[in-house]
């Protein structure tokens, strides 16, 4: 076609749609398929790790445990934590939603390196299987943080754990590189940085974290692996190493990692809240820049996990103050979302309900984070149940609520059908009740004197723990409803048009499910993505929803 003859650049360069099952659905190069592959795989691991969580809660029903032995219990919570962090939330939010939505939102046909994207994805299930197979050789016991010297003494599975996390880290790093290049180089004409949808800003702030922080973790893991397998002394104090070194290297990754887990969820919130309030997002620039500020400051706070570990006293203060400062951009985002609700015409869909739930739960987690940042209070609650309570409020109440919200929101885009709104609301109500009942009392348990990672505990806490366990079953039930709803809706859900929510970002302007090439003609962008009163801010979209033939590229 003439368009191709005139331009001939990457934007018009189209590979023919692949034929054959393997090319289409297994080793696919299509970012949308890879995104869905990520989401499905991560949900499979989510179910496995969720079962481990229920084993933990059953064990804690009685002060003397008795459901499983202490050693098995240690293995269970270690794998639960590792799997939820590395195999569920990070791949789901970056590889999953990032792949599914980000290239379309910036008006690209695919990510920069589709083959790299495919490799990143396929490393992930393999490393997940390796992580779970560590149970066969004696899984790691020292929690997802695996502090040496404890992890040096762990069973053979600990080395397997190192290898698995290393591999999933490689996958993250490659995804980060891929996304960053895509967003730097492949935005549609007119898609300036301040016109990118906020979900892309979330990914844009996350990609460098994935790329840089994960590599630091790879070094820490490689050293742990070498020490365990070949006796190379890095961490063993009896051979001159330092256990605190691991803590520095681990948290230098793992603190940015919590922003890897929350920034894309922030992005989802911005999309969902704006669309369902039928209003422009309030304070676009401030939200976008606070994402970048959080990502940047995220590299400067890692030692706030180590206030009790005996780092030099005057080293502690800057970490405390910078951690406090992170509360400011985070607060700005929360306030902006609440202001977006103001005078909106709010559609209380399941997706929006989860977004509102996010605001309620994540704010609580953020506030308990400020408590933890204050050294004097941290010295009291560090290593207690206050920590699991805080991290579940930000990771379940934040990231996972964001994931659910995103699934309800983009499900019509993935499949062309709605999920059941009724069961979505049931899911929301049960999940909120179960979540609050499970994790809210944990703050109190920790402050009162229950250490974390214990298989048996002081009988005075038994009542509260039983209460939590019962509510955790409610939460499990809610998630079960969600899965049934999703699986049922893939084939039987109500048909949704190409833009069921009336959203204005680019992915909603093309058919659902998205065609292989995304766009017949690369759109030009001349406005903000959230101006609901204005005409669509894109040109060259006229033919997207018609049946006119797809231009075929030269290759």
């Amino acid at each position, binding site marked *: 076609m003439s368009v191709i003859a005139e331009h001939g650049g990457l934007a018009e360069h189209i590979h023919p749609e692949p034929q054959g099952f393997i090319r289409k659905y297994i080793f696919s190069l299509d970012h949308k398929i890879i995104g869905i592959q990520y989401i499905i795989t991560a949900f499979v691991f989510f179910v496995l790790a969720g079962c481990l969580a229920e084993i933990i809660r059953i064990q804690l029903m009685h002060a003397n445990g008795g459901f499983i032995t202490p050693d098995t219990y240690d293995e269970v919570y270690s794998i639960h934590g590792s799997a939820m962090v590395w195999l569920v939330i990070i791949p789901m939010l970056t590889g999953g939603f990032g792949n599914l939505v980000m290239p379309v939102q910036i008006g690209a046909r695919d990510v920069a390196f589709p083959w790299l994207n495919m490799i990143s994805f396929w490393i992930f299930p393999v490393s997940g299987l390796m992580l779970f197979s560590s149970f066969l050789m004696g899984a790691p016991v020292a929690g997802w943080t695996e502090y040496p010297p404890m992890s040096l*003494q762990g069973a053979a599975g600990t080395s397997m754990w190192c290898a698995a996390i290393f591999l999933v880290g490689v996958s993250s790093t490659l995804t980060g590189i891929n996304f960053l290049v895509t967003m730097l180089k492949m935005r549609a004409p007119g898609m300036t940085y301040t016109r990118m949808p906020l979900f892309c800003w979330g990914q844009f702030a996350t990609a460098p974290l994935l790329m840089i922080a994960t590599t630091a973790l790879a070094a820490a893991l490689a050293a742990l692996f070498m020490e365990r397998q070949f006796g190379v002394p890095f961490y063993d104090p009896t051979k001159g190493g330092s256990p605190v070194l691991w803590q520095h290297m681990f948290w230098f990754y793992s603190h940015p990692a919590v922003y890897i887990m929350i920034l894309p969820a922030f992005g989802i919130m911005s999309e969902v809240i704006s669309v369902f309030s039928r209003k422009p997002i309030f*304070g676009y620039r401030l939200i976008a820049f606070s994402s970048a500020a959080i990502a940047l400051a995220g590299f400067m706070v890692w030692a706030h996990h180590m206030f009790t570990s005996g780092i030099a006293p005057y080293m502690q203060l800057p970490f405390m103050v910078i951690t406090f400062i992170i509360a*400011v951009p985070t607060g700005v985002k929360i306030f902006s979302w609440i202001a977006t609700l103001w005078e909106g015409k*709010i559609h209380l869909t399941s997706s929006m309900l989860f977004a509102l739930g996010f*605001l309620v739960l994540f704010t609580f987690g953020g506030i308990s984070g*400020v408590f933890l940042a204050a050294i004097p209070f941290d010295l009291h609650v560090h290593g207690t149940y206050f920590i699991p309570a805080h991290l579940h409020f930000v990771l379940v109440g934040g990231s996972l609520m964001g994931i659910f919200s995103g699934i309800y929101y983009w499900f019509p885009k993935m499949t062309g059908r709605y999920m059941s709104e009724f069961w979505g609301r049931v899911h929301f109500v049960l999940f909120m009740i179960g979540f609050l009942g499970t994790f809210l009392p944990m703050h109190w348990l920790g402050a*009162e004197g229950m250490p974390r990672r*214990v298989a048996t505990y002081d009988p005075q806490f038994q009542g509260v723990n039983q209460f939590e366990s019962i509510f955790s079953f409610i939460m499990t039930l809610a998630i079960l409803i969600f899965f049934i709803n999703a699986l049922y809706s893939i084939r039987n859900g109500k048909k949704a048009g190409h833009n069921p929510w009336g959203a204005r970002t680019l992915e909603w302007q093309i058919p659902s499910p998205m065609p292989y090439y995304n766009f017949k003609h690369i759109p030009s962008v001349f406005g903000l993505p959230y101006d*609901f009163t204005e005409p669509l801010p894109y040109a060259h979209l006229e033919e997207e929803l018609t049946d006119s033939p797809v231009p075929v590229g030269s290759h």
Partner: protein
Amino acid sequence: MSKHRGFTIVTVVLALLSIAEILYFWLMPTVEPWLPPEGGHPGDQVDWLFRFMASAAALLYTFVVGYVIYFAIAFRRRRGDSPDALGPNIHDNPKLEAAWTIVPTLFVVLLSVLSIKIWYVLQVQPANGLVVESIGRQWYFTFRYPDVNGEVTSEMHLPVNVPVTLNVTSADVIHSFWVPDMRLKADMIPGMINTIRFTPTRIGRYKIICTEFCGTGHSTMDKQVMVVEPVAQYEVWYRGWQVHNAQVSNAIPTVSSGAISLTGGSASAGQALFAQKCTACHALGPFSQRIVGPGLLGVLHDPTHPNLVDGDPATPPNVAKILQNGYTGSFGHMPDEAENGLSSKDIANLVAYLNTLKVK
């Protein structure tokens, strides 16, 4: 104004609610509903910080949740609204945005100043204090007092109202020394000494809890107590340990010692114990049948049985030694008597039972 009367009412209600919460956090006589009873200085300072942060958090959280719920209800799409109805086209409000950037920043500065002040209190060396050391071990704490040989192994006694400098370290893996009532914690890291400073002011018995995962017995590492008592009673206890440990070497012992008398072990009692304590890790099968540890069938009668994990031949006294001291090393981990809850009599019974097992 009338248009936003609901908003005004909600704001007033939330403000009143916040004031009530703030008053509650400042006026409650003790922080006991939220934290364990406070047992000394600087726990009082931490409690003060807790009251401050809790009231600020209550203020913020009340407004966030209140507004989210109110907005979701008040601005929901009504039945009569057209499906395409839009909200007002508000993009931003620089004054508002500046306000909610600057006010939290100021609050953060205030919080930093307060935290640093209290942090400084935690660093100050008390004059004429008592210097005590604690060593974390799998899975108990030991203590070293000035002019007491060796280690104090049971409770930790402290005189009331005397400043204490506590240096902690570990003999094996990382532990953590936490006394919730003192609001203080320090990780016990092998090869490092961490210090906490406090002054117990209330007489009582406080739990010492390990909060850093340290192996199979981590859950049980909360059984020891810190006893704060009047100086006279403390002196008596202290002299008692001085006498008790007079003959003890000052070197840090690595394993508990003392051979167990194996006479009079009952094989039937041992069999019951074995089913209860051992079968989770050890099979009643040949040596190669491994669950966690090796199979134990005929362990004492098999001439081809390899030596025990510590290199000693498999004889009843050596097996008893492993049951007593446990083992942690390249072969894995075997709990010791304390963690398995085995008395000397139990060990004798178990060895007697193992002695009856013969390879077919």
